[in-house]
């Protein structure tokens, strides 16, 4: 992207497509070009640890899987000679004449997600990354561990490819450091990835790896992260709280780490490999682009966003997601991606669907009761198959198989002219089943199915024999065996094809309205965004007022007042005609499924049934009420939310407090609540700064276990230390004691640096108490969604689907998912809306044909199927027999395999189908 002209709603974006010198339409991804290319180049995908060719795909799972030629490294472009790729390409896809293409694209909104650059640790002289081969970056180590990496996942070190027995990770390389690099922020992800790498390295190690992580504060604040940290400790990973002095190299290329422990002792320990946990930064090119586009960056060179609008940049209509707006992990990046999509689409909702075109298909031929007439198309794939397999022999063999009415061999069965021909052949030969023996159904089944549809056949009357990826390519040295195996695979596919039945894809109407449960910050934002996308929304809140926990919150991490923001949200909600507000209302019953929910609400005015197509659960969480530190017994001990409330109401005046002690991890990171509440460290630092601002003479001491001011919150931590706030660390075995003494309180804490007890006199003690789940079991059961062990709603996939449930049409946002700061709750609300809109905007849903059904004459109602169904798609009918809800079924077949009575079966993968394949083997 070169430039963005215009303004919100009417941008012109200049985009340059670089030539790949390969015609995407012709490339069949056979890899011949890469195999024959003589030029080797360091592989950027494997962090330069091994080589790729100048004709290449960046990595094997690339989408689209099409090769490219790296012109700056290509011998032909450098010296005018070679052309090996062109010569060996079986489809003539290589085209050296391709030119750079500049296009202007008209769009209404823009999302920037240019990501981050891993910090280059070369400039740390004490780590000697550039000089010592066995000092690697974390990203390099990721590739070392990866199955698709340079050593196929075998744990080795670069210098001698021997398995390391001892590995050290060094944290905060390029983070929390203004001396070696100008990065005062915490990169937020390194603690977790270092633990992950250490655990996986131990799993990969054959000889029992000794793994040690050298750190300042361990910042495992995300969902289930603290458990993972505990698990790593149990697995024997050593966590060493320390400062690194330097690394030196031994004669055998092993490394000696000199470090100072927390109490100041100087130590030396040898390791075979050292991993530098590099931080995240914005690349200079991205900085330059942002400056050119007029998008404001903060002093850490990330895009500036507000806590109230976490994906909006300073330029209206331009949105941001991912690490370009500050370091963050995958779940939050994915969440923000959906949030940015929501924000970007909100103002464009009137244009939704205006570019869509309806596909025209011929009527479907009824084949019921007809004897199968199977057409078999054997693909040569240039020489990819035919170079190993005798495709003529396979085609001849296919002719001898039962029900096979037509066979042909194609040079490229997937080419457009073959598709046209196939359409004609199906009609001429009156074929009613088709088998293609070629590559893999994972990439090509949809293409051939479309051809069937265009020939008037049901798309499910199709099967493939994988004679390329799983045969010719992997048995290149055994042409005879590969030919025989190809015959076997064709026979198996034909046996299945003969049994295939046309399947219908049920169409369901979608009710274009939504329900949001919970009227806190997340719920209010979700409702407003849904309304702005044009959907009628029911906002249900059991309390009589909106706002939730935020009503008590004073400021955000950016020191913006929360109360005016809440007032603004509420005013906008009240004014929004698309929103129906249900205060003092609870959910009594939920019926239905994605696209068609019927929810019974119970409020003061009685019961009401509401229809909606999607639901967002944003029911929030509660503050833990401590049972320790004199809480509830002494009025000078308050939780942090109570303190916020008192500061706002004026009951509490910092000027009248001479000594304040804040205690962290109250109820969090304890055996009964083994998670970090994520927001408390920042909140206490903010509170400390607030007291220091109003009353510079006030002594403020924060008792902590690890300070977890992730991201740019670290700057607040630094500022607090600068202003004289004292930080004293304790551990779980030596928790502080709070005792009443005269008018005030005495807090006793064991100081790790001094190795003895400190006594602190305090006027006020603030407790950073945990955020705890409401454990909304009833709601969870009504919507058929799960809670995890801590009572948080459990997402479909922690990284890839962070706001979805496995149950379609139900989404989550806010504290109900896990403790989080306000900006993440807002982003998650926007994300949930974007996900809900994918359901609501569809108008109609097409359900796939490959779903389970129950033969009720065999069903005994024992309940195994509905217990094991991962999608809760099976329920008991009024006779107690199983019934599949096709709208929820994902076709996994778990019900079929677990039923003793043989009542369920899976369309497309029936018992008969699979047995036919086994029997034809």
């Amino acid at each position: 992207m070169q430039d963005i002209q215009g303004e919100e709603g009417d941008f012109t974006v200049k985009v340059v497509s670089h030539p790949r010198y390969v015609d995407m339409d012709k490339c069949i991804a056979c890899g011949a070009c890469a195999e024959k290319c003589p030029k080797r180049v360091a592989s950027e995908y494997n962090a330069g640890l091994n080589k790729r060719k100048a004709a290449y795909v960046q990595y094997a799972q690339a989408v689209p899987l099409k090769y490219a030629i790296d012109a700056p490294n290509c011998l032909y472009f450098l010296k005018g000679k070679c052309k090996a790729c062109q010569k060996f390409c079986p489809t003539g896809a290589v085209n050296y004449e391709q030119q750079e293409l500049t296009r202007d694209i008209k769009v209404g909104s823009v999302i920037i997600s240019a990501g981050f650059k891993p910090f280059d640790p070369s400039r740390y002289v004490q780590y000697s990354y550039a000089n010592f081969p066995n000092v690697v970056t974390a990203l390099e180590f990721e590739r070392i561990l990866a199955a698709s990496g340079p050593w196929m996942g075998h744990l080795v070190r670069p210098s001698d490819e021997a398995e390391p027995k001892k590995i050290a990770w060094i944290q905060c390389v390029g983070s929390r450091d203004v001396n070696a690099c100008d990065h005062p922020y915490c990169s937020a992800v390194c603690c977790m990835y270092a633990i992950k790498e250490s655990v996986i390295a131990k799993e990969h190690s054959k000889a029992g790896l000794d793994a040690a992580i050298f750190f300042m504060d361990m910042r495992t604040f995300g969902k289930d992260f603290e458990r993972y940290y505990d698990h790593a400790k149990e697995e024997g990973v050593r966590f060493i709280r320390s400062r690194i002095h330097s690394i030196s190299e031994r004669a055998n290329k092993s490394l000696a780490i000199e470090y100072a422990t927390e109490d100041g002792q100087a130590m030396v320990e040898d390791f075979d490999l050292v991993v530098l946990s590099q931080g995240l930064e914005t690349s200079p090119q991205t900085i330059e682009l942002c400056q050119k586009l007029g998008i404001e960056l903060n002093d850490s060179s990330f895009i500036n966003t507000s806590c109230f609008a976490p994906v909006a940049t300073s330029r209206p209509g331009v949105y941001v997601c991912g690490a370009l707006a500050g370091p963050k992990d995958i779940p939050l990046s994915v969440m923000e991606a959906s949030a940015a999509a929501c924000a970007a689409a909100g103002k464009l909702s009137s244009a939704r669907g205006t570019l869509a075109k309806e596909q025209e298909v011929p009527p479907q031929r009824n084949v019921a009761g007809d004897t199968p007439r199977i057409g078999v198309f054997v693909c040569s794939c240039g020489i990819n198959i035919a170079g190993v397999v005798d495709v003529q022999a396979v085609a001849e063999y296919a002719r001898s198989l039962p029900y096979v009415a037509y066979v042909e061999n194609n040079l490229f069965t997937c080419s457009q002219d073959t598709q046209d021909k196939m359409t004609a052949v199906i009609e001429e030969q009156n074929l009613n089943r088709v088998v293609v023996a070629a590559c893999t159904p994972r990439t090509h089944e949809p293409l051939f199915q479309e051809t069937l549809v265009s020939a008037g056949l049901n798309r499910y009357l199709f099967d493939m024999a994988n004679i390329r990826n799983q045969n010719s390519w992997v048995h290149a040295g055994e042409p005879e065996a590969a030919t025989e195996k190809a015959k076997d695979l064709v026979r198996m596919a034909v046996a299945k094809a003969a049994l295939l039945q046309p399947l219908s894809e049920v169409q369901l109407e979608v009710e274009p309205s939504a329900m949001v449960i919970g009227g806190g910050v997340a719920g209010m934002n979700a409702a407003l965004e849904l309304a702005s996308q044009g959907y009628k929304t029911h906002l249900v809140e059991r309390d009589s007022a909106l706002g939730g926990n935020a009503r008590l919150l004073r400021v955000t991490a950016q020191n913006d007042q929360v109360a005016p923001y809440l007032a603004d949200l509420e005013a906008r909600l009240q004014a929004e005609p698309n929103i129906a507000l249900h205060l003092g209302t609870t959910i009594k019953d939920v019926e239905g499924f994605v696209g068609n929910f019927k929810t019974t609400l119970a409020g003061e005015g009685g019961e009401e049934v509401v229809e909606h197509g999607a639901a967002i659960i944003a029911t929030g969480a509660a503050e833990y009420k401590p049972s320790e530190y004199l809480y509830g017994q002494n009025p000078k001990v308050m939780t942090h939310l109570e303190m916020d409330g008192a500061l706002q109401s004026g009951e509490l005046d910092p000027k009248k407090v001479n000594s304040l002690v804040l205690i962290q991890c109250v109820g969090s990171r304890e055996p009964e609540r083994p998670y970090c509440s994520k927001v408390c460290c920042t909140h206490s630092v903010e509170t400390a700064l607030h007291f220091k601002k109003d009353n510079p003479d006030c002594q403020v001491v924060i008792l902590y276990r690890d300070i977890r001011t992730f991201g740019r919150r670290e700057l607040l931590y630094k500022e607090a230390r600068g202003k004289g706030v004292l930080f004293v660390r304790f551990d779980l075995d030596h928790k502080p004691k709070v005792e009443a003494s005269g008018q005030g309180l005495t807090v006793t804490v064991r100081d790790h640096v001094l190795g003895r007890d400190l006594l602190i006199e305090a006027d006020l003690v603030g407790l950073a108490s945990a955020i705890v789940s409401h454990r909304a079991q009833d709601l969870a059961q009504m919507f058929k969604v799960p809670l995890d062990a801590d009572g948080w709603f459990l997402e479909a996939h922690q990284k890839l689907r962070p706001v979805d449930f496995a149950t379609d049409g139900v989404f989550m946002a806010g504290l109900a998912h896990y403790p989080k700061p306000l900006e993440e709750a807002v982003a998650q609300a926007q994300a949930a809306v974007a996900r809900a809109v994918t359901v609501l905007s569809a108008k109609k849903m097409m359900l796939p044909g490959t779903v389970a059904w129950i033969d009720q004459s065999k069903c005994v109602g024992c309940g195994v199927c509905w217990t094991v169904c991962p999608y809760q798609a099976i329920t008991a009918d009024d006779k107690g027999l199983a019934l599949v809800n096709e709208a929820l079924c994902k076709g996994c077949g778990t019900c079929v395999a677990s039923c003793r009575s043989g009542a369920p079966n899976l369309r497309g993968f029936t018992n008969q189908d699979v047995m036919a394949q086994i029997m034809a083997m």
Partner: protein
Amino acid sequence: MSTTQEIAAQIREAAKRLLSEGKVDCVIGFAQGTVPMREYPYFAYTPEEAENLTWSRFCCNNLSNFLVRRPKGQADKVAIVAQGCVSRNIVGLIKENQITREQVYILGVASPGMVDRNKVQALFPLKTITEVTEDGDELIVKGLGFEERVPTKKVLRQNCYTCVMRNPVIKDEMIGEESAPTHGGNIDKVAAPWEKLAPEERWAAFQETFKDCIRCYACRDACPLCYCHVCFVDEARPQWCGKTQDEADVATFHILRAFHCAGRCTDCGACESACPVGIKMRKLTSMIEKDIRELYGYTPGMDLESQPPLSVYKPNDPQEFIK
């Protein structure tokens, strides 16, 4: 301890009371058989019929089997005589939605341990036994020209020696007193007997055990777990198992039947008691239940709350066998 005769009298009294009060429509129990040592399942619908009920060490059927196969439209609520294993199977049937707890009135009784009639017969080779009666802890065996006493303890069914729960786990009324929960035997010492064999000897042992199987399905029909309308052996599309006595078909039937009982079998022994050719199929089924105990710490039918082990999973389930 009450004698079985005393228990039988109490069962009759309870049955008469329940039927005359209209609390139940039917009492399922045992009546005295026409052949020695073979009491047969009996359905008493009237107080008069209840006089025919009996209880002894010859009650080898698992009565819970009749809770799912009762003739339709007859009795709404039934009472059933249930010792430990039968009550555990009732628990299983409740969990598997075959009956509700309210539909059944359980007359709980401690199991005295049931007699294996083949063991008694084996003590008197080639002789015809005409009558066997219980006298305390002994059996009085009468035949043509002989009368002998046999200690009951010597001739119990194998599964009864290692019973883990003789007392009913759920009941509405206890007949007689509870006994010690076990006979002192340890199931884990005798379960899965072929585990001691070398791997290459096992198939032969398996074949030897089942070589006489005539595929009559008496074991299946006696089993309270086998209540499917269509058993896998009767399926034709696809045919999972041939219908012959070929070794592969016999093996397939018994392996799959045992697998279907995994996590459900209470080791009641009804299958072995029912087998007309004396196959000891517990040599196979006992292995599965031992495996379930070892892998998932589960014993079937002990309570109404716990989840059947193959319908749940835990993230930390054993998976060393998966590469």
